[in-house]
């Protein structure tokens, strides 16, 4: 068995290992805070200040600003915590899927249907 769990890479896949967990700690901690309505309100009132409070890096702040989900993954975001950020933006998993794959939400849903039928 490989000593490094993420030695094997898959295209378009960002495995959340120790390195990523360290890199993305502040970002994920901020997203985890969004479980509370008060935190969501505080973020919405002043996103920049809220990012600063969790000491996000410049790259992470920029990805938050531009809703760049792939950028957030690259900067150490875990999808489970990022889902709380995108939930705050009222985006569902198909919206996020579209954003990551360069499709519209409807195109992404159509792909899911094809994959679900086993056509791919």
């Amino acid at each position, binding site marked *: 068995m490989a000593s490094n769990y993420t030695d094997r890479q898959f295209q378009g896949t960002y495995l959340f290992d120790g390195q990523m967990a360290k890199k993305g700690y502040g970002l994920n901690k901020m997203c985890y805070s969004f479980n509370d309505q008060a935190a969501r309100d505080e973020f919405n009132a002043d996103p920049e200040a809220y990012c600063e409070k969790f000491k996000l890096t410049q790259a992470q702040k920029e990805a938050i600003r531009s809703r760049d989900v792939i950028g957030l993954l690259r900067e150490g975001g875990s999808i489970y915590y990022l889902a709380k950020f995108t939930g705050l933006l009222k985006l569902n*998993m*198909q919206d996020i899927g579209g954003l990551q794959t360069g499709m519209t939400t409807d195109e992404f849903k159509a792909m899911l249907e094809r994959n679900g039928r086993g056509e791919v």
Partner: protein
Amino acid sequence: MANIIGAITTSHIPAIANAMANGLEQTPYWKPFFDGYPPVRDWLNEKKPDVIILFYNDHGLEFFIDKKPTFAMGVADEYYNSDEGWGIPTIPPVTGESDLSWHIANSLVDEGFDMTICQEMKVDHGLTVPLNLMWPGHQYGHVKVIPVCINCEQYPMPQPWRTFELGKAIGRAVASYEKDLNVVVFGTGGMSHQLDGERAGFINRAFDLDCLDKLVSDPEALTKYTNIDLVEQGGAQAVELNMLIAMRGTLLGKVTELHRNYHAPISNTGSGLMLLEHEMPK
């Protein structure tokens, strides 16, 4: 003695909770998924289990990555859901089974499974969605639930062979409990899906169906996979198959499949519902 009388695999995705809250079960999108459940509900209503041991993963409600247990279990008399960040309505508490939980915890740690033991544990959609699917309208308060939480979010994660062994150890713990209780085991989550990255939307129907077959008749084959194999075959979040594999570990002898409904996609996932019985110890 306590007896495991059967086991169930089911999806646990949040979108199911929304569909049920909005009465969408018979809409064209959801009907093929929800139509699988009545036979399983009928079986549960007939068998009336006292306890459900429920394998799930916490998606960032109780546990953050400041401290991330590999295996955690609840030993409380009651568990609560809470806001997970997107406003799932607050639901009634889940009843626990403290005495059997502690018995299992003692037995597991003595056998070398160093569980994180929780007297307070907020339970997320991974646990509450399956309960509401089995007892719609949140009518699950009469059944006692033992939550067993497996890390599926951050590497390193327990490998399939290990979660299978955990299931076996839980099976032994239940069989050594003196009180007469009927127990059903739920393995929740999966199956193939990938939420993140440019590969998002990946579903592997053939792999899912093969996994369901092997869960019945050849679970050892599934323990040969590493988590990275599961990612390759089923997408990044297919590691949730570990909960189904752990469930299978609790079963003994010949396993009989009473019901199956596979449907894909629901939200981004392949959904595998199965009802299993096994050869109960005498």
